[in-house]
C-alpha cells in the first residue's frame, strides 16, 4: 500500500525577462509572462517559435541565458524546494534508456520522481487509454504520447506542462485526452500549460492563450477576449480600401480575388459595427486558428 501525499495548491509560474540563445541564435527574447494558478493555458506558436525551450526553462530542465523562471516567486533553476511542484511532459524517444521498460514498470517508477504521484490514477489512465503492457520502444508514436500524458496527469504536480501532448494521437484519442484533462482539472484545479499546433479543437479547453512568434510574446490573454478582437472584413476592393484608409487601419492579412478583397483586422466592437453598417462590406468572426495565422503569418497568406 502506498500513501499519496496531497499536492499543495498551485502557485504562479513566471518568466522574468527570460532570454535564451542557442549559440548566437536568439530563441527566446525578453519574455515576461505569468501563468496564473489554477488555469488551463494554451501555448501556441509556429515550429521553432520557442515553445519547447520556454517549457523546459519554466520547469527547470533547461537554463536561461538571461532572466529567470520563478515559481511562487522563487527561482526554479536547481531549486529542489520548488521542482517537485512542476512536471514537464515531452514526447518520449524510443532511443531513451527508459524506453526499454514496460509501460507498467515505467509508470511505477513515477513515484520515485514525483512527490505527489498517484499510482491508482496512473492505473486507471492505462485502462482509459487502452495501453498495452509492452516495452515503451515497441509502442506506436500515439501510444508513447499516451504514456507521457499518463505520467503527467498521475504526477498530480500542481503545475503541469505538456509539450505537444496530442501530436501523435488520432482524433478519438485527442478528444479522450481533453475530456480526461478537463475532468482532472475540475477535480483538482491544477495549472496546465499545453503547447500544441492542432489549435482549433483545443481552443475551447484553453481559458487563456500565450502566443509566441520568433521567441517573442505576441498575445497573452483570455482566449475568447483575444478572438473577439479580430474580424475578417470583405467586399469590393475599392470600397474596402476606402473604409480602411478613412480609419487608418492597417490590415494584418490580405487576400485578393479579382475585384474582391478580404482582410483580417484587429479592433473593437464599435469599429466592426461601423464597418458592417457600410453597404457592400461583410464582417465575419474568426476562430483561434484564424487569429493565430493573422498574428504569426506575417501577412503572407497567398493573394
Amino acid at each position, binding site marked *: 500500500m502506498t500513501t499519496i501525499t496531497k499536492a499543495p495548491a498551485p502557485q504562479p509560474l513566471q518568466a522574468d525577462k527570460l532570454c535564451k540563445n542557442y549559440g548566437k541564435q536568439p530563441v527566446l527574447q525578453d519574455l515576461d509572462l505569468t501563468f496564473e494558478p489554477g488555469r488551463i493555458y494554451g501555448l501556441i506558436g509556429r515550429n521553432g517559435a520557442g515553445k519547447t525551450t520556454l517549457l523546459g526553462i519554466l520547469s527547470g530542465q533547461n537554463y536561461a541565458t538571461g532572466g529567470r523562471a520563478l515559481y511562487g516567486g522563487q527561482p526554479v533553476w536547481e531549486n529542489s524546494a520548488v521542482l517537485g511542484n512542476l512536471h514537464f511532459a515531452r514526447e518520449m524517444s524510443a532511443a531513451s534508456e527508459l524506453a526499454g521498460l514496460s509501460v507498467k514498470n515505467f509508470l511505477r517508477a513515477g513515484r520515485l520522481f514525483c512527490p505527489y504521484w498517484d499510482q491508482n490514477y496512473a492505473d486507471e489512465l492505462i485502462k482509459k487509454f487502452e495501453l498495452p503492457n509492452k516495452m515503451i520502444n515497441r509502442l506506436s508514436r500515439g501510444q508513447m504520447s499516451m504514456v507521457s500524458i499518463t505520467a503527467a496527469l498521475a504526477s498530480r504536480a500542481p503545475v503541469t506542462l505538456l509539450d505537444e501532448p496530442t501530436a501523435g494521437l488520432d482524433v478519438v484519442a485527442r478528444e479522450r485526452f481533453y475530456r480526461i484533462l478537463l475532468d482532472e482539472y475540475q477535480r483538482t484545479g491544477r495549472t496546465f500549460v499545453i503547447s500544441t499546433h492542432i489549435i482549433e479543437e483545443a481552443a*475551447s479547453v484553453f481559458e487563456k492563450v500565450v502566443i509566441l512568434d520568433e521567441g517573442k510574446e505576441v498575445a497573452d490573454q483570455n482566449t*475568447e477576449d483575444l478572438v473577439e478582437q479580430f474580424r475578417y472584413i470583405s467586399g469590393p476592393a475599392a470600397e474596402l480600401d476606402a473604409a480602411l484608409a478613412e480609419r487608418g487601419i492597417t490590415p494584418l492579412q490580405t487576400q485578393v480575388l479579382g475585384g474582391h478583397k478580404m482582410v483580417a483586422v484587429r479592433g473593437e466592437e464599435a469599429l466592426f459595427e461601423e464597418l458592417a453598417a457600410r453597404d457592400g462590406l461583410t464582417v465575419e*468572426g474568426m*476562430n483561434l486558428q484564424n487569429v493565430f495565422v493573422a498574428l504569426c503569418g506575417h501577412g503572407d497568406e497567398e493573394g
Partner: protein
Amino acid sequence: MKGTLNDQSLIYRQIAQLLEDGILRGEYPADTQVPSTNELARAFNINPATAAKGINRLVDEGLLYKRRGIGMFVAPGAAEALRQKRRENFAKTQVKAFVREAKRLGLTQQELYSLVKAQAQEEQLP
C-alpha cells in the same frame, strides 16, 4: 438540451444561446434549475471558466438567478424577456441582411413582400 458547438462563434456566446434556446422552447420553465458550469463543461468538452462566462451572461441579463450552494435557476418572466430581445435582434440584423440580399438579387419591394407573405401563409402565422 439539444445542440452542438461549432468553432465559428465564441464558445461562451454559444453556451448562452443554447440556454436561451432551452428557455424559449420551454425546456426550462421559470424557477427550474439549468445545467451547472461543470455539467456544461463536461457535455461540450470546454473549459469550465468559459461555461461560467456563458451562464453569467444570462445572470447579468436577469434571465437566471443563483441559489447559493444549489445552482442557477430560470428567472420568472425570462422566456418573455428573451422573446422581446430576440424580436429586437431579428429586426436589427436578420431582416436587414434579408432585405440586402433581396436588393443584390434585384427584387422589387412588391416581389419581396409577396415572397414573405407566401411563406408566412405556409407557416400559418396568425
